[in-house]
């Protein structure tokens, strides 16, 4: 059945609008990529000569190297701790009711609403009182708090979609709770666990505002080093490192989508 002309025009306008909005989202990444390959130190469009010198600069810049190294340590610690804390508590939220559950849930999800500068300042004051400023511990604790809501959410959605009858079947065949957990529940949860960990890892590595408050020279992460760079220099070294960030992040997410199905994890798939 052919649709009337007005419907087709509407559909075309809708598509054009979506393309325009996608263009708005992509524009900065596109512009930064062009700028990063420009040979000149001042930004200019279109670039006259193509060069890779800003990429060499970015990779060899001392503060960026140190920031990358610190960020990896913090990211690995924070993402695994957040995964364990978040997955365990998501299990509890899904299965049990007890007094204080809602309060606990509200506290752990609060960092989605509480500004990062407030979390950062609070942790900094706490660290100062305990003599822990300038340590990795403080940064890791801060990141665990900030990324936990994302782990909780993705593991919870997976748990919610899990077929409980499989666990019951294992239990009825005599498997003890630990055995059910490790041989049935956890393997079925793998996509949610992996994507929850990945979200935590990316968010921790890229976190900036709270990190600015809780890191010191010794524990500076890459985004903080980049922020300091932008304030002091205007050359495209920043564009080069931004391109690396964008490419790595987009690739990781595309891989996660291909293997884990981000649509399911983010709960944006059409219900049947």
């Amino acid at each position, binding site marked *: 059945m052919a649709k009337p002309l007005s*419907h087709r025009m509407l559909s075309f306008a809708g598509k054009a609008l979506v393309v325009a909005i996608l263009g708005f989202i992509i524009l*900065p990444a596109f512009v930064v990529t062009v700028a990063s390959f420009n040979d000149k130190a001042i930004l200019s469009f279109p670039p006259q000569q193509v060069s890779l010198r800003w990429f060499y600069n970015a990779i060899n810049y001392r503060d960026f190297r140190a920031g990358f190294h610190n960020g990896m340590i913090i990211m690995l610690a924070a993402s695994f701790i957040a995964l364990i804390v978040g997955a365990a508590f998501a299990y509890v939220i899904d299965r049990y009711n007890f007094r204080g559950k809602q309060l*606990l849930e509200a506290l*752990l999800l609060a960092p989605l*609403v509480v500004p990062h500068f407030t979390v950062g300042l609070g942790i900094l004051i*706490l660290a100062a009182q305990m003599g822990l400023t300038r340590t990795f511990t403080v940064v890791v604790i801060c990141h*665990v708090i900030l990324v936990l809501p994302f782990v909780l959410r993705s593991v919870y959605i997976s748990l919610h979609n899990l077929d409980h009858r499989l666990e019951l079947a294992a239990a009825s065949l005599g498997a003890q709770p630990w055995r059910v957990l490790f041989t049935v529940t956890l393997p079925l949860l793998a996509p949610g666990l992996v994507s929850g960990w990945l979200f935590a890892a990316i968010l921790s590595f890229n976190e900036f505002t709270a990190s600015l408050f809780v890191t010191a020279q010794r524990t500076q992460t890459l985004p903080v080093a*980049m922020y300091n760079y932008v304030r002091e220099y205007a050359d495209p070294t920043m564009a080069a490192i931004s391109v690396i960030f964008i490419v790595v992040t987009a690739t990781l997410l595309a891989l996660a989508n291909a293997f884990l199905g981000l*649509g399911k994890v983010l709960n944006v*798939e059409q219900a049947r």
Partner: protein
Amino acid sequence: MNQTEPESGAAHSRPFLRLFTAPAVITAAIFAVAMLAILQYSVRAHIPGSLDVGGFTLANFAGMLRPLYAWVFIDTVWLCLLTAVLSLIFGYPLAYALVRSRSLFIKSFILIVTVTPLFLGEVVRTYSWIVVLGNNGFINSVLRGTGIIEQPIQLLFTVTGVTIALVHVTLPVVVVMLAAAIAHIDPAYEKAAESLGAGPVRVFLTVTLPLSGPGIVAGLTTAFAWTFSAFATPQLVGGGKVNMVSNLVYQLGFANFNFPFAAALCVAGLALTYVSIAAMRLTLRPLEKVGLH
């Protein structure tokens, strides 16, 4: 969700309860203590030149009423509202396309493009906008190159520039929340309206849009809170001309070392965030209710 509680005392019927809750309790406790530390600092006197704090006082909160600070709060709330509404307007078509597109490739493409900035962090995105908006940046170069303008348009260090960058930051999360809501609308409702003779516009306005109400409320409130949390964007794109509460907190904490006043700003900002979100939800209550069957 309303499972009946197992008999209390039957520990074996609730395996892992304590073991799995303990780490969450510790994390929540650290967070709560950090928030209490801010609350405690906010009512302490600042001793200039020292990081120690003095006795109890309400002077920090009184100081916030000075026009200089009061205006920053008003500007911040205005920017947050503007950003939230713009994110909703631009996010909705994208969320709709993400859920309803029939092509798996287009779906994946929209999802990756939308979600990547969400994980990218504020510094990279803010820097990118400086390159786009600067006087020698992309927009001005293109406009000058094509002869549309002769003098560069000032976009950096303006409210317009900051708003554009802020919308870019909040758009992804709004799209994800709207998409989750749209995805849970039963297409049968739309088909029913269509079979009764409603055109696509009418179906959208009277069925799809109201049924996605909970997503609209969640998207608006989250966008508001995230914009309030933004620091690098107003700091670098605003360049001191556009100041938000976050910039004041940082300046007072790390330039003046007045941590009590910075803490008081945080407390006021947090209260303002929660009050604004509550007000938004109250205003939009009919929308939020409609999605629940």
